[in-house]
């Protein structure tokens, strides 16, 4: 594909806050900033991985893209059309293009519906013009695509293992022939061997149906395995966005660098050789984030300027993004040479 990539989605200045109880009876509600200054694009046909620790805002971002949560400000442009401004009825029609797969496969399936009913459900609301026969035909076709046998159509979710249940969840997302699927930790609850089967299935489906995927996970190895580009979030902000190779071979942000050295690698000799960039402490509270660069409290390269100034999200060569005031100095001082 030598054409200029088509931007399927453009996320502009998205911000999302939640109001939470201050704790006490008379305390004022507190504002938790889950996402701020989110700007990036998703290209048609790519898999964009979103990584970050708990509380980084990765699931909130996925939900804001799908309009399952409404951003406080900013735009979510789907082929140029702002989804945040779309009337409910229009948005409902769009939903057949935008689907989601959840982490806990069994919890996300209605236990009182059969597999056939679960998979057909989105068609009832999103494709009301289809009759019962046409729906059944589509359901069977989709079941075959995800590796479910036709005779399973009348069974109930509890009769399935986690891996099979996740296939049902994938079929439900796939049945409306979407263009984009947000996969929110789709393999985190599965056994290792099943996890690999589902990852392969997603890759096959992506090729077969020309899907664009947003793959949210805390597991950097999984994300690296499936993604073309990777977005790294920290405390609700983008710290880096680059291709999988760039992130892995030439990470620019100190957080990405530290994150990479912390990823467990299934290779004992390599594991013994490498030194973990000891990130101190844990992700701070998003209710009261640090001033300036939000990562500075854990960053071993932080200086006075990092507390005063919020690093802008810089666009570098090849379109990669990074938000760090000091990345050039850091790279000069400590070049990456097989850190992982």
């Amino acid at each position, binding site marked *: 594909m030598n054409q200029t990539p088509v931007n399927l989605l453009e996320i502009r200045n998205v911000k999302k806050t939640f109001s939470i109880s201050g704790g006490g009876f008379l305390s004022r509600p507190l504002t938790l900033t889950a996402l701020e200054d989110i700007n990036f694009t998703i290209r048609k046909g790519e898999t964009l991985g979103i990584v970050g620790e708990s509380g980084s805002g990765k699931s909130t971002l996925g939900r804001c893209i799908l309009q399952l949560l409404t951003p406080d400000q900013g735009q979510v442009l789907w082929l140029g059309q702002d989804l945040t401004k779309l009337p409910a009825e229009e948005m409902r029609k769009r939903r057949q293009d935008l689907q989601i797969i959840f982490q806990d496969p069994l919890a996300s399936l209605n236990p009182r519906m059969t597999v056939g009913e679960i998979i057909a459900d989105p068609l009832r609301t999103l494709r009301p013009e289809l009759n019962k026969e046409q729906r059944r035909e589509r359901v069977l076709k989709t079941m075959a695509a995800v590796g479910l046998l036709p005779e399973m159509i009348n069974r109930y979710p509890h009769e399935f293992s986690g891996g099979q249940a996740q296939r049902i969840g994938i079929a439900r997302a796939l049945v409306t022939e979407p263009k984009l699927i947000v996969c929110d930790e789709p393999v985190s609850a599965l056994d290792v*061997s099943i996890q*690999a089967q589902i990852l392969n299935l997603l890759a096959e489906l992506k090729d077969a149906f020309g899907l664009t995927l947003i793959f949210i996970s805390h597991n950097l190895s999984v994300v690296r395995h499936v993604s073309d580009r990777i977005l790294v979030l920290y405390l609700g902000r983008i710290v880096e966005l680059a291709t999988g190779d760039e992130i892995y071979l030439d990470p620019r942000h100190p957080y990405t660098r530290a994150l990479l050295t912390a990823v467990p*690698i299934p290779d004992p000799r390599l594991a013994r050789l490498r030194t*973990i960039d000891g990130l101190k402490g844990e992700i701070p509270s998003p209710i009261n984030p640090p001033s300036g660069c939000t990562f500075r409290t854990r960053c071993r390269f932080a200086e006075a300027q990092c507390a005063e100034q919020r690093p802008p999200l810089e666009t570098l060569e090849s379109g990669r993004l990074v938000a760090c005031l000091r990345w050039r100095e850091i790279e000069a001082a400590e070049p990456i040479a097989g850190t992982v």
Partner: protein
Amino acid sequence: MAPVLTVKDLSVRFALHDSVVTAVNNLNFTLEAGETLAVVGESGSGKSQAFLALMGLLAKNGSVSGQALLGDVDLLALSKTELNQYRGRDVAMIFQDPMTSLNPALRLKQQLAEVLVLHKGQDQKQAETSAIAMLERVGIPEPAKRANAYPHQLSGGMRQRVMIAMALLCQPKILIADEPTTALDVTVQAQMLDLFKTLTDDFGTSLVLITHDLGVVAGVADRMMVMYGGRPVEKGTVDDLFYDPRHPYTLGLLHSTPHIAKRAERLDPIQGMPPSLENLPKGCSFHPRCAFAFDRCLAERPALTALDNGREKACFHEGPMRYGKVA
């Protein structure tokens, strides 16, 4: 040197309403002083139940047979009261979810001190001082202040550190950690694994690390035992099993694990899913998922046999294994 723990013919059974399932079947292994043994397997492999049985923590419908020799004491032959003298003092266990293991109504120093008062006969004051010292040892900032906190006031990583501190208070010979980092973020996981390494080095504690994550195993373990359907299928040093696996299941697990250093390509997963314990396949319980299975595997169960370098495997297949696209 004699092993710290010798487990012989350990079996764990659960009575269901109309049948009995065997979760662990004739498990034999030893744990050496100061070593880290990883116990690896998927859901239903019996990896957790085997160690819950050692600690006398099986569910009510569970029963255990066999021997677990801690020195010359058989842990499995002790009464609950007798076992209490050893639990926490000689053998400690920590779990995946620290919140469910800590008492939400007690301040940290109260629950930590209790262990020392009970096992070491220290007075409250003395015990609290030791508790605070241990909190500092496991990397809790401002330990004296944090000791007054309740569990809900701490983050997940901090709670797991408190669990480790509590487990190590009596400097046990053995620490059993069941998926201790599974619920944690990767940066916090790295800190915990690092802490395990330092602590086993400093205290000479033997660590049993129960996990499904081969990445975690590679970083900290000396030896590993792979379990499938309630039985060990391969045992050996971490290097032997990672670089030269002899059991098809071990090989399959390795090929199923994504590696950060490798470009996006298809994984070669094991086909099918882990078996139900109620309905284990005849012969080798792995044979329906095994690419190398032949007639004998369907009829007969392979026994765990010794190979070179102290390793063992339970598999009839001989010779090299060509797996999927990777030779």
